[in-house]
């Protein structure tokens, strides 16, 4: 899973597999960060949740 | 026969015409590798026998009945390109590995998560899952071999070609100078066989007996057509025995032995 684990090989298999895995985790993580930050911004500006409109 | 990257390809040649089915190989294997006995061993597909001896017959009625015995250790498949062994390629946790220097398929019980995918992948039933904890009787630990760890419940285990003996032989060779000779590394089953049916050695080394024996036109491997590329060879003069070692379509002849 990490280069410090001894099964790790710097080969194409690990690049593709782990690369995609960490990319997916990063996207999910960034998505959550964006949602948190937007929430904080709206709260600080005193926005009323009912003004946000429905989705 | 494809070449290994490593210098050794340890393998076995078993002469089925010499095998009497006595089971000494199985017993030797169990005691060498600390294989436990359960309180109830009636369910054979849950008990552990790294080297199982199958009995087969030619399906004919008396007086034409013939029987043969097929000792079946792990076949130590090499697969198509070294590590593409049926079991090694599927293990999610790298708990089983193909050693490129010896050609031995290893098993690391302390790493095994017990998913049993490898058990399903192996067509030889050479892999065994520990369905139970072994109820070692009090004091039994003094009878255990210190060279092989006993396994816990919930993991898979299998024949390792007595890899600890290879390690011991390497240590000896290092201390005394020189290299591991044919006699220095022999599996427990090979030594125990009273009729000399099992021969073990380095298939790559022309000085080892198995090197020649495996080239015998009468030597076949179990389920060779699947492409498992095993390192256990079986020799028999009997046509029906050879046919029983693989699947053939109706009317298909025995495969012609490749000149290798």
């Amino acid at each position, binding site marked *: 899973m990490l280069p410090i684990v001894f099964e790790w090989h710097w080969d194409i298999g690990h690049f593709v597999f782990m690369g995609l895995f960490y990319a997916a985790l990063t996207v999910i993580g960034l998505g959550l960060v964006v949602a948190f930050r937007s929430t904080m911004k709206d709260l600080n500006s005193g926005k009323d949740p009912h003004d946000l409109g429905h989705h | 026969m494809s070449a290994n990257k490593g210098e050794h390809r340890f393998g076995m040649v078993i002469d089925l015409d010499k095998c009497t089915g006595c089971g000494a190989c199985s017993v030797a294997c169990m005691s060498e590798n600390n294989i436990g006995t359960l309180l109830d061993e009636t369910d054979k597909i849950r008990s552990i026998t790294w080297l199982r001896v199958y009995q087969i017959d030619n399906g004919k009625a008396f007086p034409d009945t013939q029987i043969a015995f097929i000792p079946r250790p792990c076949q130590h498949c090499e697969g198509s390109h070294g590590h593409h062994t049926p079991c090694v390629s599927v293990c999610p946790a790298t708990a089983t590995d193909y050693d490129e220097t010896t050609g031995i398929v290893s098993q690391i019980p302390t790493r095994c*998560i017990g998913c049993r995918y490898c058990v*399903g992948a192996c067509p030889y039933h050479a892999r065994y899952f520990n369905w139970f904890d072994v109820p070692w009787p009090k004091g039994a630990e003094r009878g255990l071999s210190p060279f092989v760890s006993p396994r816990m419940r919930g993991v898979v285990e299998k024949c390792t070609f007595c890899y600890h003996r290879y390690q011991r032989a390497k240590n000896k060779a290092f201390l005394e100078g020189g290299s591991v000779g044919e006699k220095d590394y022999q599996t427990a089953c090979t030594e125990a066989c009273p009729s000399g049916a099992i021969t073990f050695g380095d298939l790559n080394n022309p000085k080892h007996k198995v090197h020649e024996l495996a080239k015998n036109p009468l030597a076949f491997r179990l389920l060779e057509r699947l492409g498992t590329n095993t390192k256990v060879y079986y020799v028999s003069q009997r046509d029906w025995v050879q046919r029983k070692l693989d699947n053939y379509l109706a009317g298909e002849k025995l495969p012609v032995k490749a000149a290798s």
Partner: protein
Amino acid sequence: MDDSKFWPQGVKRCKPGMFIAWLLLPLALGGWATLSAFLCLYKGLNQTNMNDYFAFGVWIVVDLAIIALGAGAFFTGYLTYVLRRHELKNIINAAVIIGFICYSGAILMLGIDIGQPARGWFGFWHANVHSMLTEVMFCITTYAIVLIVEFVPLILENRQISKVPDLAIFAHHLHRIMIVFAATGTFLSFFHQGSLGGMFGVLYARPFAFRTGYMIWPWTFFLFILSAIASGPSFTTLIVMWTEKMSGRQLTSHSVKMLMGKISGFLLIFYMVLKTADTAYWANVTLPNMGLTMGDLYKQGPYGEWLLWVELGLCGWLPAIMLMFQKVRETYGLLALAMILNCSGAVFNRFVFTIQSLAIPVLPFENFASYLPSWQEWGISAGVIAYGLLLFSLAYRYLPVFPQEAELNK
């Protein structure tokens, strides 16, 4: 005891007493499952009837089946958020909840199925990237995270919870970027539905399961994806229909169900064409190369050719053709029947690949062994279903799952 202030805006639910009485069923099944799980964890897998010949049993069948049927979540999500089929917004919430139930249920089950549950994380830490099962583990876990992220805004939309401004705004923002999660989920799901199929297709020493393929992917990789996205939308719709029958309320307009049926039908036709071609190639080329005929693999115990007819005919081509007809999709009962057959076909397929693959001896001198699950194995399987019933019942009662419900039941 009145819980009506927690109900979604403008809808009615049954009396609390009745609801609790209904919950006794999943709770009772859950008790059975808890006892079974305790025995399996405490005493070990000897509590099951699995053995060295049947290394996988009913648990893996249920696992594969619910993951295939749970594919409604990712595929409907993909159609709704990425391809912007807006009418599917009326059913996407149900699809997400069912997906979450299926995936989390499968993960719980796998935790008991492995011999050393405490070492489950070794599959990640010591990952063998060449194993299809590793891919399954990584994708299922990551996708479960995505499903949680997709489920959370729905929980936050509960009438009382959404009164908290922080949570309401957070739910709004999660919804706003749902396309990101839906796309990630699609990618992850695509690969693990495939790798679940790949798991069997790569078993080159198991002629029943082995398939040739494209590059590193055996044909089963692609077939499992297709059968999952063909049956997933059907399963989601069926659960909605069942909820309608139980609650006596219409939850989505029939046109939404018809659309789901159409999507299922077209994918199923496509799948059946490829699956039939794959079966023919396997029977006529792959197997003879291994010295076997198809007849050799369908003569052991109860595993006869009837399985093939049921899977490909009754539960394959028949629902595929049925769903092609507008008339069938318009009729509530026929649509449900076609969808039941479709889902059964996917379950049959997973069953055959898991159990029959192992049941057929490969060594010519090996004997056929039989397997029937123990009560503990049934208990855990029932537990996953109970978990689904419980979660979906609670979600339906307290969360605004169906946007059309208030309108349709005025």
